[in-house]
């Protein structure tokens, strides 16, 4: 008896291909193009429709905007990635007192209980956004671990308007994701949700209950 892999591939090969490959007409994807300002408006509309909240900021004010939000909401602490450029900038601007900045700087095994039980919010950067449907593109990694955008009840994400792409399709091409991907990359369009009980929408079923986008206007 051949091993399953050989047997399966053998059967597929024996079936042989039939006919030429059909052409791919991507015109419907190429039609999705907007000027920069409209991309911002579309992303915002799409994401607000699924309960994402937006805070407006500029390239210089955004750390203060994050801080003001944390104070207003009375957050106990905010998880951030100290080795990430935006995380470092946030820490540099953070005044003592009030919401505590909490670095995600050790393996999760060292503070799993704390992460699940004690953290109020997580702050992450993004590598882009998607205008067509609304969505943030994230590339977690050593500087910004995966669970920061998932486990805390509030996720605050920094998005620069200039990084918003037309569609997921154009983003994949612009970011070169088809050539190389880190172990984890993702798109997020809103807070965690479900409609499994009688088709009624409920937020925060497993992931964050709130998604806050700090939108930096850097288009000028």
């Amino acid at each position: 008896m051949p091993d399953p892999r050989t047997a399966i591939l053998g059967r597929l090969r024996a079936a042989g291909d039939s006919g030429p490959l059909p052409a791919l007409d991507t015109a419907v994807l190429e039609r999705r193009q907007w000027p920069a300002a409209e991309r911002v408006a579309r992303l915002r509309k799409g994401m607000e429709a699924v309960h994402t909240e937006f805070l407006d900021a500029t390239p210089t004010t955004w750390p203060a905007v994050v801080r003001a939000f944390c104070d207003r909401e009375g957050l106990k602490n905010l998880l951030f990635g100290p080795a990430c450029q935006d995380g470092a900038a946030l820490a540099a601007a953070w005044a003592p007192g009030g919401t505590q900045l909490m670095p995600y700087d050790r393996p999760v095994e060292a503070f799993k209980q704390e992460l699940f039980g004690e953290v109020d919010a997580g702050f992450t950067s993004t590598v882009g956004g998607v205008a067509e449907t609304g969505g943030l593109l994230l590339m977690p990694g050593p500087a910004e671990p995966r669970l920061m955008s998932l486990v805390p009840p509030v996720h605050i994400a920094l998005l620069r308007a200039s990084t918003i792409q037309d569609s997921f399709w154009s983003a994949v091409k612009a970011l070169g994701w088809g050539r190389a991907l880190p172990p984890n990359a993702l798109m997020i369009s809103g807070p965690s949700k479900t409609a499994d009980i009688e088709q009624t929408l409920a937020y925060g079923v497993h992931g964050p209950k709130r998604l806050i986008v700090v939108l930096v206007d850097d288009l000028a």
Partner: protein
Amino acid sequence: MSPNSCGSAPVHAETEVHFRDAAAKALLDPQLRANFRRAMDGLITKRKAQFPDPRDLQDLRDLSTAIRSRSLLNLPELLEQFEANCTKNGIKVHWAETCEQANELILGIMQAKGAKTLVKGKSMVSEEMHLNAFLESKGIEALESDLGEYIIQLDGETPSHIIMPAIHKNKDQIARQFSQKIKDAKYTEDVDELTAMARKVLRQKFLDADAGLSGVNFAVAETGTLCLVENEGNGRMSTHVPPLHIAVMGLEKVVARLEDVAPLYAILTRSATGQAVSTYFNLITGPRGAGEKDGPQEVHLVILDNGRSRIYADPQLRATLRCIRCGACMNHCPVYTRVGGHAYEAVYPGPIGKILTPQMEGVGVRHDLIHGSSLCGACGEVCPVEIPIPEILVRLRREATHEDLGSAVAGKGTGRTATEDWAWRLWAGVTKRPTLYRIATWFATRFGKALPAGAPLIKNWTQSRTKPVPARRSLSERMRTEGGPHA
């Protein structure tokens, strides 16, 4: 049963399963019908709103169909490329011909790591394998974490819809169930409170689980990536929190490039739940990398055949494998909406189940399923990858009664019954002989009316319809006497 099917399936005994009886029973349950009708109406409306421009919809369908067809044409090569890239990325790839093999593989992977608890994201392939029952028989707890799956697992039920597994239940039923089955839970019909209860229980499970399991929506050959589409975040929890992640997929899931995934994803969420985008679109390309502080230490992938390579061998039936499991065909099916998902007694209900299940388990065993359709065509019309479900149903009906069509269909010819055979033979004998045909129609037109509605065979038709009354004279008779171009 075919050698490739899941012999351990609890719902399928060696005997034929009767969709007809189960459907008749379901029709008597007004609550069930109301639950499905409301849900399906909602999904149909939301899907429609996502496709305001018919040209865009058709272009997107054509593109998606072409992408899936190309993937299938190159399937063995793409699978090899995908496997090589996964391996390069540190994902361990395993192959299984049958559900039994896949179950054993997963058990082995878990045992090697000493894992005793498994928390699951939604995976229809794991339902196909009856993985939960298998693991539990080996002393391993397998807990569903998708809210819908969690709800039905509490009651020991199976999904009634591939996207919305608990759609057959309403709020009151879930409220009662939670108050009885969740420790310290109070009775509430508030959906937010019910959701919060499940969140609390499941958070602890994610935290404690030794391993997590997920399905795969798309597998990308060029990068060796597993794509996961979800709204709840339980998929991310199951795949990123436990130290071990095991993914399972049917071998047809692979596509060539990440670019190809974009249109498939766009049409999947819109067709499924009428969403332009899901909350999360997760791309997993490896275990915890160098310097990473979280993510699983090991990622394993089990690629399952379970009859798919046999389906693949047939040029017409191969289209079945284009399916992206959006569920639109069930949402739009008049039969599904009335009888609900459980009546099919199959992992995949509705139109896609009607063509997939008989091909996996044998057309004879699931003979009733291929006949449980009015062939109205709604499924084929909404399918985002243009699977000609009605045509495949007709083909399978033929396969079920003929073993000599030269195909590889499992159980072909085993659905043949003596009565049907006899009826067709009689019909053929009469229509081939003009004199006999004339005599038969003479009798039918003169005495057909007198035939009681409760007569055998006729009864099946007249149960829910009025008995047709034959014309007083047949057409050919009138042509002869009244004249016509060929009289």
